[in-house]
């Protein structure tokens, strides 16, 4: 880790660079809920906070995180909140009014967007949120600028005492590049009590005043964008290319590869609000314009309207040449430039018809030893035993992978908390034998499962709520949450028990089981389904067993030997249940269809023992006390 003042360049992940930038800018308070591709920002802040004194927390969801950081900024403390793009939807209520009130110290909202949906349900372009909420948006022109633009976001926010959205993307946050770390100073947050209701208590009379001032401030911010160091015009020529955020990097590379020389670039790392005077200067004397931006035509819409106002009449191209969907890449940008400049497209790939290769797909799958696998397997049996017809209202987390074969047990997945939410609808429209089963993770339960569960109890919605409690927020890399019992840095934390929460909300039947004990899990789930069927009320079942990837990483770190299981080939009948119906990746079929356990992949969970009808699976290195002590 670099020391203060050191200036040798080091390779950092983009998200790490954002964290370093924030600390360089004087960060005092950070809150976040994990979400790809934003998570590493706050993970890095946790590491840095020990030395540099600022406060960091994982909050229960994005709205809570945003309010915490917003509150701290009202209290005069430089704050940051980070989330993935859809997290901003969750936080939108307070964010929408934050520009009205402003703040007393810098308040930076990092929105990590996911063009191409590498790990998300949609690819919404959160620059629009800046437009509709009067919040300026900054985005680095390439990974290389990420740290500097983070610092600029703090400066801008501090100057106008106004929230700023720092937009990153999967490509920016998950690329590594060289960075120089500047001086980092220790800062312990110390805010103050604020008594200014005209500004911070937004009753209608105050809001009307604030709204007028907001519009004035917005014009000032637009002027700032005209001359800010992160926006500029470079080159000269009759053809202008306008770049928004990371499009700049692709455009620079593409122009160079294609040997194009006579061009002018308007490079915008601050595009909301669009700097009107700078745009006018760039358009002067130009014959033709191409706007290169990822996803939505945010710059295009505003630039065309300004051009009209100013009486320009040149050709302006944008989404007619640059695709609206998916992330940008050199191919897309070179194609757009080749049409715009009428030059040759530089790439000539070998024509490969990939279907001819007959390649099997390789989606991500549940890990070896994943407790979710046992729960899905047991749930399927219980559904059959109880004689109910389920709709599986799924949710977002590792268990979303239950949508794939062999489980096929996620009929709906839309957004975090949607499982219980959708079940609240299905519960009242199905016949008695048809039951909604809401499947939700532990972290998701705390994030957005509580209000819909209260609703189910209150409105007597028959459903089984199955909480898959693997003790951590596994999908985003095993961050702790309110039920985990420790903080990111390992210190003990209070435990909020999911069973207690459900009972406290008035759920009459709450059961708990260990998915590693599949037989017991089947019994308990069958009972639960029968109660739902007969009594027409919500029942909560909690499957408790830690994420095996997480436990395995601890075992490796501590040098604890894992148990190991093996298949007795004498007893194995080649039925395929373990590798087809159960599908642990550590179990692979041999040529003759019998099963074999790959000792490098097996984590020693023992779930498969219950699955084999012929008792062919047994342990060859049993569980030790030491291994058992890693679980909780």
């Amino acid at each position, binding site marked *: 880790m670099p020391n203060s003042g050191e200036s040798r*360049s*080091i*390779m950092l*992940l983009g998200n790490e660079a954002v964290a370093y930038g924030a600390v360089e800018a004087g960060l005092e308070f950070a809150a976040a809920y994990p979400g*790809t591709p934003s998570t590493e920002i706050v993970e890095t802040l946790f590491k840095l906070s020990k030395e540099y004194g600022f406060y960091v927390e994982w909050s229960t969801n994005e709205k809570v995180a945003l309010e915490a950081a917003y509150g701290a900024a009202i209290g005069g403390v430089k704050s940051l909140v980070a989330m993935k793009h859809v997290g901003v939807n969750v936080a939108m209520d307070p964010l929408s009014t934050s520009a009205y009130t402003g703040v007393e110290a810098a308040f930076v909202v990092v929105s990590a967007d996911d063009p191409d949906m*590498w*790990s998300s349900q949609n690819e919404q372009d959160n620059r629009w949120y800046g437009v509709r909420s009067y919040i300026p948006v900054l985005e680095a*022109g*390439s*990974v*290389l600028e990420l740290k500097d633009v983070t610092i600029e976001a703090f400066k801008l926010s501090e100057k106008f005492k106004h929230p700023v959205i720092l937009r990153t993307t*999967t*490509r920016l946050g*998950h*690329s*590594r*590049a*060289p960075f120089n770390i500047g001086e980092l100073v220790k800062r312990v947050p110390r805010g103050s009590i604020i008594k200014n209701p005209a500004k911070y208590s937004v009753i209608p009379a105050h809001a009307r005043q604030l709204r007028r001032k907001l519009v004035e401030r917005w014009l000032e911010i637009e002027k700032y964008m005209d001359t800010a160091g992160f926006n500029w015009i470079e080159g000269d020529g009759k053809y202008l290319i306008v770049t928004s955020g*990371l499009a*700049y990097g*692709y455009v*620079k*590379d593409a122009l*160079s*590869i294609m040997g194009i020389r006579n061009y002018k670039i308007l490079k915008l790392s601050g595009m909301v609000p669009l700097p009107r005077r700078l745009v006018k200067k760039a358009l002067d004397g130009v014959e033709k314009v191409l706007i290169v931006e990822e996803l939505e035509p945010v710059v295009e819409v505003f630039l065309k309207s300004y051009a009209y106002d100013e009486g320009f009449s040149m050709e302006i191209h944008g989404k007619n040449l640059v695709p609206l969907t998916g992330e940008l*890449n*050199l*191919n897309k940008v*070179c194609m757009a430039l080749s049409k715009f400049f009428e030059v040759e497209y530089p*790439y*000539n*790939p*070998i*024509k*490969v018809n*990939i279907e001819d*290769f*007959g*390649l*099997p*797909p*390789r*989606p*991500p*799958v*549940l*890990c070896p030893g994943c407790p979710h696998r046992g729960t899905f397997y047991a749930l399927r049996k219980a559904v059959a035993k109880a004689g109910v017809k389920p709709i599986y209202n799924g949710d977002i987390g*590792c268990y979303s*992978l239950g949508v794939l*074969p*062999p489980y096929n047990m996620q009929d709906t997945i839309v957004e975090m908390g949607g499982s219980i939410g959708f079940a609240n609808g299905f519960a009242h429209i199905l016949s008695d034998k048809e039951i909604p089963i809401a499947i939700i993770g532990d972290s998701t339960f705390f994030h957005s499962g509580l209000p819909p569960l209260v609703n189910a109890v209150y409105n007597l919605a028959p459903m089984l709520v199955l909480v898959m409690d693997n003790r951590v927020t596994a*999908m*985003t*890399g095993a961050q702790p949450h309110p039920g985990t019992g420790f903080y990111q840095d390992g210190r003990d934390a209070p435990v909020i028990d999911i069973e207690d929460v459900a009972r406290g909300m008035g759920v009459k039947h709450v059961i708990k089981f260990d998915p590693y004990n599949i037989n017991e899990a089947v019994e308990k789930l069958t009972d639960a389904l029968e109660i739902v069927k007969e009594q027409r009320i919500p029942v909560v079942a909690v499957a408790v067993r830690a994420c095996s*990837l997480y436990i395995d990483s601890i075992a490796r770190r501590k040098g604890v030997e894992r148990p190991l299981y093996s298949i007795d080939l004498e007893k194995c009948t080649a039925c395929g249940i373990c*590798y*087809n119906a159960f*599908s642990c*990746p550590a179990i692979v079929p041999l040529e003759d269809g019998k099963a074999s356990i790959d000792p*490098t992949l097996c984590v020693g969970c023992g779930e498969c023992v219950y699955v084999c009808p012929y008792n062919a699976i047994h342990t060859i290195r049993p569980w030790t006390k030491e291994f058992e002590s890693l679980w909780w």
Partner: protein
Amino acid sequence: MMKYCDILVTGVGGQGIITFGRVLSSVYNKRGVRVMMAETHGMSQRGGSVEVHIRIGDIHSPLVPVGGADVIIGLELIETMRVLRYANKDTIVVANTRMIRPALPKINMPSPDELISKAESLGIKILTVNAHELALKAGSALSVNMVMLGGLVALDILPGKVTKKDFLDVISGLRMSEINSKAFEMGYDAVKTIL
């Protein structure tokens, strides 16, 4: 036209592809040469396809373009085939011959020889290495990534006159550095002999 080198590394989650990329980029960063590396690891589960893009030189963006790879390094054969669209007629592909079965029920595995000859019939230059076997010889199946890194260095097409020693210096800072260095050397030698 600027001088740069575009490298695509592919394989299966858990094979150490990101470590491969980090060693390579660290060698260049130490020399003050700009390098960028893009990772596709959206979800933390093991077992999915992983691609790492590494671009070296005076560049501003991290993704290798389709049809623009100078080298493709495949740590697993099915995944290597899956990314052939990145190749052009000058691209060199170095492929581990080993296949890893995706953990899905009832799938048909292709034959490695058939895959390789299909790729060759399209005019793709492909060098094959049994990296799994070499890694086991070096001392651990987990060092397949270093075997393949050795193979990349043996091609002698990396820009900026980097040497074997530059890589071994960085590898010496990794966990299991002895096994990894040995695996690197073995991959280097294996590719040198088939060049």
